Every structure is written in structure tokens, then in C-alpha cells.
């Protein structure tokens, strides 16, 4: 296909490098340097998408990142498919494949367009009004249907195979935007020796200069000056130039997030480079040179394909050599329409007429247009446009004192509009700087700063090329100086307008700050005319007016009610016109209506760039014990406990070679521990070594228990409270010496407990001479549990008398196991005779294997966390965080015995003295037995006295642990029940969706209630 709409010469495309690409399955050609948008326009293609709500045919509106319509899916393959890319930013490469979105079955015939005919029934706020009834219908019916009809792009279902990297960078001056202001700022800062980063979202640096054909700077063509300036900057060691890099977020203390698109523009990206790179730049000073965005005019049918922003049409012609059509009608409220008309005429486009909203048309550009023989019509508006898939005519009418005269239809294939320029204050606003309404400029401009930044050029309302260059240079110099001085400006200071130390000679058209905001008059039936304000979210001026009629006053309410400005473009082209319409409707000045908040990201940003390398196996740290690999080799099923991988159970091949399920494996493991011996990897327990002359005093204050009299060589079960009196953690503590404790914590609680201890030690009792060291990773812990436990370990241990008399329950001894130093605990979390062998982690696996071998003659059975849970529940041992939920006192959890009543103080003691903490109707730990022993209750189930009581049924408590006990041959459960201890023997009910389960409240110890098995 030929480029019918390509100019004969000119532009920055490389006509010697033709490229072939596909759009919606059809092959087209373009040139290196084209965007997908400019190449399609050169091929005469304007129909690019369907709108979000009404499925109206849409074309290109702009040539930049503000584009609301031209969202496409660009796919290299099934996994590398990016939806919602703006075709105006997609750089063409050989073989590029793009698809339009939001249409079915095809772009020119779309079934969803019936929404357009139904539009009287889809007014603003329709989400709130229409879909509220019947109950449940939103989830079942409306939402899926609306999503299917409306949704923007479709994300690929395959994992993203590309790489994304994340860089941190520091600089003296970060300049955002490489238009004339940004270039001059970077130059000034660089010349003063500052370390500069200059970034720009476009492929080429230069901003508006890239679209200049007649402007001059310092006596050169603007584009030549641009090339020389970029060469100058690129040649400096203190300057980093980042094209294709969007400053998308401004975070506190001058942290600016940049998204660099590294390989999307390459036909064959290879594997050496990441697809995107996140730059987290910490800049001493920031110069925002973000330029300005052209505003559309809000007139009926302004969304027809072929209706574009005038300056964008000029960019297509001048920069890309692409004509937006053959015959254009221009509708303008400022001189930008004339500048576009003159450049397009020079490119060979017939300008049929310029309708100027202004009554007074004077100045250089209109004069040149008249001299060029263009039909210029002051006080004229467009009141409509025809052409469903491409504009075919425009209707013009004179306006006098607000009254719209008769219409005249002019045939055309494109309509170019300009309502003036809106300073791009997004980043400034993100930095939390205060915006100030400037009546003369008709715009919000940067006011008081919060961060160390300054704006330069068009984004702060400066216009005219020479003044923009000088302002950029001045801000760049001031920023460099501020970064050198490191001076902290008084808070809330507005940076004084700086004067540059050098002048620029520049010659270019100055468009001034003229323009229009709001909706232009059209005199048509307002119920039928669709004048779009927000193209991407399909919001019309009528919708905004409806919102004001329904009582919305704040722009924030109008925004949410109509959804204007809430699409992925965040209202870049629509926000100011919305304000203008609301202002006129409410007869309230614009600054009184407010302005919606700008939030990051400036343009949509991939998830990949945020994830970076943090995906798959390195998404989160994985903690494995020294015994992990042995467990894996022996077929363990694992469960995640925090970051730990813990062996959950060890299934074995049963009869017929079938692997046991969890239920069967756990039943077998439990029976083995009770009948003979089992072994369990308890290495994940948190461990803290507490050492120092005041160690016992510190323990006394941190735990409820009394520690002073605990002899070295003894263990004690410790309970830790928060200052509010509720159980925070528990664990067995060994006193190794007068000044040394080996503290264990719950697996998940270790960091929290250490931080809690550090807090008190550092801030409340800095006088205590104590040191706390996390030793969780230093010790492997092998629990050997069961009547045969002593016989299993005896042959391996040296230097410890294992006899019952010398080493009773709850003691710790130091010796060696296989020559490895050990702290041997006689402790049980199963109710059986038990030992916990602590050895340095490096020996963990070797010792484990030796114990396993030594236990073989007893059929030693490795067991996992599930069996551990069942065994401890049979004994009524609580798990902090399962039985307790942060509102349980020690007494609630049956741990009243562990509270040192005689102690004067400990953390949480004063809170326990409150009346409410000993109220008889507190929830207390009890056991539950179902009347039907086969029924296993659901953990978390509620407990009531009478499920048929009137709603709300008084709830007495809930099930905290529930298992089938193989040893007891029945189900068991622990529960927290109001006044539970007084209810022992009572029958209560556990209501389920279909029926209620009868339970008996019992003591929470189901097995060996006298504890006779502990001593073997």
C-alpha cells in the first residue's frame, strides 16, 4: 500500500528506511521514525478504536501521550502482548503487529454500537442509578456484561517472559522534559558542572522543536540548534540523556520515578537488554519542563474520526510528513489554528475555512492566513460534523451575543480544533505544590512549592520560544546553584522568577495565552447533540450539565458522578473544559470550583516495571531449615508458615502403592509418636539469646513468669504479654547460666518478640545490662518425642546423664551428640516423653540423619506440622495466634498458672488488674466433643446455646482448633467460649449453613489428663 497521505518531502522520518507493519490484520508501510499513528495517518487510516461506553467510532485526537482514543494492543507473540498502548507513542518497527480494541466483530461494524442508540438511557451516574436492583444482580449480571462490553484492552494470559530492571540514581538536577525549556535548563545546569539527568517521554529529545519548520534559534534552524545542543549535552560526562523515559511519579524528598522503555521500539529486541527500566532518581533539585497540552473544543460531533487537535495535525505534517487529510476545516479559539493552517497548507492540505470563536481576529498569524487566501471567519462556531467512520463535512454557524445563526455545511475530510494550551502541571501537583489560578493566562499555574523543584517554560505559562528558552536557562542555573549551596529554602517559598545569565535569540510564532474553556455554543437540541469533553470515558457536555443539575457542586463530585477525567489519560485533554462547563452552569468562577488532584502515574505504567526482578522464586524470601532437603527427599508435603517452608506431613505409599492422603499420613504419624517414637523438625522456632548481669531481671519484666529462682539447667514455659495485658507470645526458655537465657518464641513471632524486647530495653530500661541476639538461624532443633525417645538418643549423646532422675522433664543440659555440641532440652509439645536437640545449624542434617538411623529399630516416624498440631491439641496445649487472637488474657487461655502473682511488675501486669480482665463471662479456653464422634467441626465456626433463638442469635464463642484424633478414635476441638469453664458438661450448638452440630463442653485436655506420660 502506498502512503497516499505522505508529504513529498520533509519531516524527521527516514524515507530511505521503509517498514512494513500490520494493523488489524492488514499490511501497511511506513518509515523509520514514524509512530504507529503517523504511519496509519500517512496511509489514510483514521478509524482506530471504539469508545468505552457508546462504542462510537474514534480516530486520533492528538500526537502524544495525551491521546485518549487510539489505544491499541501491540503483540510480538502470545505472551508479549501489551494492551492499551497509545498508537501515538508506539514507535514503528519492521513487522510490528497492532490490533484495535473494544470492538466486536470488527472496527467498522461493532455490535456494541447499539449503546450509542441507547445513549439516552445511559446518562451520567447510570452506574449508580440503573444497576442497583435486584439485589445481587450487579455481581451476577450487570458487572460481567458491562465489563465484556466496555473493557479496554485484554491482558495476555501467559507469564510475561521479558525482563524489567530497577535502577537507583542520584543527581544534582533532574530535568523532566526535553523541549526548549528543558534543553536550556539542562544546558545551564550542565555548564555549571552539575550532575544532570534529562529525560523525555518521546523517542527523540526536542519536544515542540521537533515540529518546527520555520523557527530559528541563535540564527540556526531550530532543528539544527536542537541537534547541536543535544550533541553538546551528550558529550558531557556530567549529563545523562534518557529518551523514551516518562517521569511518571513525584514522591516525597525529590524521589522521581522514571519509566524507560528500552526495547519496545526494536524489531528484534534480543535478550541482552531489559524491556523496561525503572529509574528511582533522588535529585537534589528538579526542573519540571513538561510543556503544555492543547485543549480540544467541545462542540457537537467533535469525536468523529478525522477531528484532531490542530497542533497535533501540524506535528503529523511537519515532523512525520503525514497529512491528516486533503481538505481541512479549522475551528479555533487561539492562533494555534492559524499556525496549523499555514503549515498544513504548505504541506499540501487544502484549508477550506477557519472558524474562529473570537470576534476580534488580529495579529501576525491571522494576517498571514488571510494573505495566504484562507477563508477566515471570526465569531464562528462548528455546530456539528457528519461522517460516521470518517468526518465528511462540518457545519459552521455565526455566533452573535451567544445566539447561533443559520448553519453552512462545508465538505472536508478532517477538522482541526484548538482551544488553546493547558500548562502540564501534573508533576508539580504530584509534588504537592499548590496550584494557583491565573486569570490572565486562563490556567492553573504552579504556585507555592513543597519540594525542591521549579517549573520552566510552557508548564508555568511562559510562552514564546525566546522567553521559554530564557526561562529554561534561568531555572536550570538556579537549580544548579541551589544544589551547590544545598540551601534549604524557607518552607512554602515560591521560587522567585529567575533571570538568565545569557539571552537567546529566537524567532518563532508566539501563540500567547489565548484560548477557551468550556463548551462552545451550538443552538442544537441539547438532548440530541453529543459534544464530547472526555473522549476516553465518553463524557459529554450534557453529562456534566446533568451532574450540576443533580446537585453536584465540587469538581470532585462531578468527576466521580460523570467519570470525566477518570480514564487512563486522567483527563489530560478534558479537565479544563469540564471546569469551564461547570463554572458556566453554576455561574461560579473557575478557581471556586477547584481542581481535581493529579496522581501518579502520569501515563499508564506496566506492572512489570514495578515488579522488576521480584517475581517467581525471588518474589519473597524463602526460608528453609537445614533439614528441609532431607524432608523433601523423603516425600514431605510442605506448607508455608510465614516465609518458612515447613514439612506438613510425610505421606507414604500405602496398600497397592497408592500414596496416603494427609488424613491417613497424620493418623499414622500420631499413632507412632504415642506408641513408640517420632521426630520433628522444630528448627523454625524463634530463638533469642539473652545475656548479661541483668538478664534475669529483664526476663522478669518481659514475661509473666518468675525467673529469679529458676536454676541454671532448668526450663520454664514463658508467657509474654503486651502492655495491654493480652497474650503476645509464648515459648520454652532455658536458663543456661545465671546470666544467660536461651529463649524460644513462636515460629511467626520471632521478629516481633525481639523488637518488643529491644523497645523496652532501649527506651524504658536502658540502665539494664543485657544483650539480645537473634539465634533463630544458628540452631537446628530436632524434636524426638514418644515413649522410646530416651532410648533413641541415648547412644548418641555424650556428657549428659540421661537418666530420669538426673534429667527430668523441663531441663536443659549441655553436652555433645556425635561430637557436636548440643543444648539438649527435655521438653514435650506432644504430652509424651520428649527431647529437643539443639545443634548448630551446619550439623542439623547430619544429626537428624543419625537420630533417624538410631531410631529405625523403634520404627521412628518423621512427622510434620499437622501431626504436631493434632498431638498438642489432644493435650490442650494452645498455639498463640490460633487459640488466642490478641484479646485473650493468660487466664482466658488457661495459662493463669504461668503468671507470677507475687511479682511487683511485668509488662501487661497493670492491665490484668482491670476489672474487665477478670470478668466471669470472658471467653475461656475449653474443649468440645461432638455428640457424633465422627463429625469434625470447622475451625472458626460460631458456638451458640440455641440456634433457633431470634436473630441476632447470641454468640458464645468460636472453635479455634479442630481435628480428628486417631489415638482417641474421635474428633476433638478447642474453643474459646464465654464463661466456658463454668459451662463444662453443658451441651451447646455449632450452627452450620444446613444444620447445627451438638457439642459437649469439656476440659481442654483430651489425652493423659494427669500428664503421666511426660516422664516416660
Amino acid at each position, binding site marked *: 500500500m502506498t502512503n497516499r497521505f505522505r508529504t513529498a518531502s520533509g519531516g524527521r522520518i527516514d524515507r530511505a528506511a521503509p517498514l512494513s507493519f500490520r494493523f488489524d490484520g492488514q499490511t501497511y508501510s511506513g518509515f523509520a521514525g514514524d509512530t504507529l499513528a503517523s504511519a496509519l495517518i500517512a496511509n489514510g487510516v483514521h478509524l482506530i478504536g471504539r469508545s468505552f461506553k457508546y462504542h462510537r467510532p474514534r480516530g486520533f485526537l492528538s500526537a502524544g501521550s495525551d491521546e485518549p482514543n487510539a489505544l491499541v494492543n501491540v503483540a510480538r507473540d502470545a505472551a508479549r502482548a501489551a494492551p492499551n498502548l497509545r498508537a501515538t507513542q508506539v514507535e514503528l518497527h519492521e513487522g510490528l503487529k497492532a490490533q484495535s480494541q473494544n470492538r466486536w466483530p470488527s472496527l467498522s461494524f461493532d455490535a456494541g454500537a447499539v449503546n450509542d442508540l441507547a445513549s439516552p438511557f445511559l446518562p451520567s451516574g447510570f452506574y449508580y442509578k440503573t444497576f442497583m436492583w435486584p439485589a445481587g444482580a450487579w455481581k451476577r449480571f450487570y458487572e460481567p456484561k458491562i465489563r465484556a462490553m466496555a473493557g479496554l484492552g485484554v491482558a495476555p494470559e501467559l507469564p510475561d517472559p521479558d525482563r524489567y530492571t530497577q535502577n537507583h540514581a542520584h543527581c544534582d538536577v533532574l530535568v523532566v522534559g526535553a523541549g526548549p525549556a528543558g534543553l536550556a535548563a539542562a544546558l545551564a545546569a550542565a555548564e555549571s558542572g552539575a550532575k544532570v539527568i534529562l529525560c523525555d517521554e518521546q523517542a527523540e529529545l526536542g519536544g515542540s522543536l521537533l515540529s518546527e519548520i520555520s523557527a530559528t534559534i541563535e540564527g540556526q534552524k531550530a532543528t539544527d540548534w536542537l541537534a547541536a545542543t543535544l550533541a553538546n549535552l551528550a558529550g558531557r560526562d556530567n549529563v545523562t540523556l534518557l529518551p523514551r523515559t516518562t517521569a511518571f511519579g513525584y514522591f516525597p*524528598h525529590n524521589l522521581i520515578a522514571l519509566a524507560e522503555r528500552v526495547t519496545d521500539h526494536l524489531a528484534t529486541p534480543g535478550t541482552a537488554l531489559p524491556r523496561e527500566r525503572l529509574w528511582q532518581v533522588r535529585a537534589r533539585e528538579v526542573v519540571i519542563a513538561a510543556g503544555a497540552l492543547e485543549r480540544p473544543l467541545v462542540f457537537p460531533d467533535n469525536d468523529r474520526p478525522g477531528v484532531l487537535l490542530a497542533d497535533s495535525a501540524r506535528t503529523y505534517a511537519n515532523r512525520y510528513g503525514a497529512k491528516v487529510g486533503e481538505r481541512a476545516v479549522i475551528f479555533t479559539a487561539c492562533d494555534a489554528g492559524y499556525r496549523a493552517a499555514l503549515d498544513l497548507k504548505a504541506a499540501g492540505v487544502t484549508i477550506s475555512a477557519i472558524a474562529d470563536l473570537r470576534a476580534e481576529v488580529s495579529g501576525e498569524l491571522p494576517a498571514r492566513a488571510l494573505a495566504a487566501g484562507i477563508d477566515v471567519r471570526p465569531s464562528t462556531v462548528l455546530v456539528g460534523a457528519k461522517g460516521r467512520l470518517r468526518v465528511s463535512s462540518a457545519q459552521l454557524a455565526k455566533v452573535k451575543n451567544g445566539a447561533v445563526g443559520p448553519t453552512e455545511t462545508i465538505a472536508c475530510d478532517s477538522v482541526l480544533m484548538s482551544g488553546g494550551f493547558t500548562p502540564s502541571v501534573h508533576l508539580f501537583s504530584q509534588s504537592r505544590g499548590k496550584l494557583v489560578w491565573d486569570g490572565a493566562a486562563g490556567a492553573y499555574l504552579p504556585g507555592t512549592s513543597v519540594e525542591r523543584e521549579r517549573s520552566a517554560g510552557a508548564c508555568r505559562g511562559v510562552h514564546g520560544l525566546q522567553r521559554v528558552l530564557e526561562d529554561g536557562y534561568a531555572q536550570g542555573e538556579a537549580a544548579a546553584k541551589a544544589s551547590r549551596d544545598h540551601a534549604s529554602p524557607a518552607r512554602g517559598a515560591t521560587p522567585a522568577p529567575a533571570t538568565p545569565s545569557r539571552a537567546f535569540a529566537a524567532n518563532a510564532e508566539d501563540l500567547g495565552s489565548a484560548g477557551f474553556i468550556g463548551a462552545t455554543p451550538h443552538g442544537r437540541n441539547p438532548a440530541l447533540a453529543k459534544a464530547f469533553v472526555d473522549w476516553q470515558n465518553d463524557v459529554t457536555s450534557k453529562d456534566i450539565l446533568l451532574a450540576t443539575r443533580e446537585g453536584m457542586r465540587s469538581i470532585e463530585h462531578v468527576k466521580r458522578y460523570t467519570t470525566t477525567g477518570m480514564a487512563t489519560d486522567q483527563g489530560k485533554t478534558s479537565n479544563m473544559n469540564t471546569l469551564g462547563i461547570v463554572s458556566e452552569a453554576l455561574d461560579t468562577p473557575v478557581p471556586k470550583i477547584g481542581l481535581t488532584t493529579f496522581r501518579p502515574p502520569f501515563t499508564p505504567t506496566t506492572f512489570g516495571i514495578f515488579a522488576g526482578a521480584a517475581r517467581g522464586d525471588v518474589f519473597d524470601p524463602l526460608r528453609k531449615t537445614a533439614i528441609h532437603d532431607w524432608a523433601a527427599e523423603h516425600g514431605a508435603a510442605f506448607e508455608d508458615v510465614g516465609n518458612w517452608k515447613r514439612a506438613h506431613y510425610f505421606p507414604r505409599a500405602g496398600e497397592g502403592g497408592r500414596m496416603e492422603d494427609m488424613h491417613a499420613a497424620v493418623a499414622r504419624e500420631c499413632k507412632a509418636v504415642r506408641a513408640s517414637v517420632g521426630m520433628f523438625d522444630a528448627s523454625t522456632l524463634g530463638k533469642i539469646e539473652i545475656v548479661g548481669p541483668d538478664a534475669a531481671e529483664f526476663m522478669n519484666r518481659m514475661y509473666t513468669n518468675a525467673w529469679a529462682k529458676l536454676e541454671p539447667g532448668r526450663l520454664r514455659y514463658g508467657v509474654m504479654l503486651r*502492655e495491654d495485658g493480652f497474650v503476645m507470645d509464648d515459648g520454652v526458655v532455658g536458663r543456661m547460666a545465671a546470666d544467660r537465657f536461651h529463649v524460644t518464641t513462636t515460629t511467626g513471632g520471632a521478629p516481633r518478640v525481639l523488637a518488643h524486647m529491644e523497645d523496652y530495653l532501649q527506651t524504658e530500661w536502658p540502665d539494664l545490662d543485657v544483650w539480645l541476639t537473634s539465634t533463630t538461624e544458628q540452631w537446628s532443633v530436632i524434636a524426638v518425642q514418644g515413649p522410646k525417645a530416651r532410648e533413641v538418643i541415648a547412644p548418641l549423646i555424650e556428657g549428659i546423664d540421661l537418666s530420669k532422675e538426673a534429667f527430668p522433664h523441663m531441663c536443659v543440659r549441655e553436652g555433645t551428640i556425635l561430637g557436636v555440641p548440643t543444648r539438649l532440652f527435655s521438653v514435650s509439645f506432644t504430652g509424651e516423653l520428649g527431647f529437643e536437640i539443639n545443634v548448630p545449624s551446619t550439623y542439623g542434617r547430619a544429626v537428624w540423619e543419625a537420630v533417624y538411623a538410631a531410631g529405625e529399630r523403634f520404627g521412628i516416624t518423621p512427622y510434620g506440622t499437622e501431626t504436631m498440631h493434632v498431638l498438642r491439641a489432644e493435650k490442650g496445649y494452645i498455639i498463640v495466634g490460633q487459640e488466642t487472637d490478641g484479646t485473650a488474657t493468660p487466664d482466658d487461655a488457661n495459662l493463669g498458672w504461668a503468671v507470677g502473682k507475687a511479682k511487683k511488675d511485668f509488662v501487661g501486669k497493670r492491665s490484668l488488674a482491670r476489672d474487665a480482665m477478670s470478668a466471669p463471662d470472658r471467653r475461656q479456653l475449653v474443649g468440645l466433643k461432638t455428640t457424633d464422634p465422627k463429625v469434625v467441626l470447622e475451625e472458626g465456626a460460631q458456638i451458640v446455646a440455641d440456634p433457633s433463638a431470634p436473630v441476632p442469635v447470641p454468640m458464645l464463642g468460636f472453635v479455634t482448633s479442630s481435628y480428628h484424633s486417631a489415638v482417641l478414635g474421635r474428633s476433638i476441638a478447642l474453643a474459646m467460649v464465654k464463661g466456658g469453664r463454668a459451662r463444662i458438661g453443658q451441651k451447646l450448638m455449632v450452627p452450620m449453613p444446613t444444620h447445627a452440630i451438638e457439642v459437649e463442653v469439656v476440659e481442654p485436655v483430651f489425652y493423659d489428663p494427669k500428664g503421666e506420660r511426660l516422664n516416660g
Partner: protein
Amino acid sequence: MLIITCPWCGARPEVEFRYGGEAHIARPADPSALTDQEWADFLYNRTNPKGLHAERWRHIHGCGRYFNALRDTVSDFFVTTYKAGEPRPDIDASSGGNP
């Protein structure tokens, strides 16, 4: 992301730190001497000012020390940081806080 100056280590990014609530609330020497209301005040009631707030931070991914900071709750910017145990600096809200 804020930059927080640890009095021991210097300026570091916010992610190295953990917030620790309002500063200068000493645990009573003899809690048992307090009424329930006094104890509740100690446990729960905080000043929550608009403006300068003295608060505890811990350089958890650094030296591990607790220290105190004056932060302006309006701007979210830190005015100063100081070591635990030192008195609250006599600074008013208008005298600093810019990054």
C-alpha cells in the same frame, strides 16, 4: 519516599525504618499506683497533633536503634531527629521542614 536521618547512621531511605508511635511517653515507674483512667491514658491516649509531632522511629534495617524525630504531620516532612533519652528540641513548626 522520605529520607530519614538516623542520629547514629545518617540519612537513609524510609524503607530502612519502622515507626514506633508517639515519643516521650515514659512507662510509669510503678504502674500499680495508677488509676485505671491514668493507665488507660498511658496505654492509649495520644496527642495526634496537626503540626509538629515527636515520635519514635527504629532504624530496623540499619543499626537497630530507636530514636526520636520531630515530624510535621501537615507536610509529612521531618524537622529533626535526636537520640532516645534526649529532650524534645525546642523547635516550632515554622522553622524548618523543607526537604
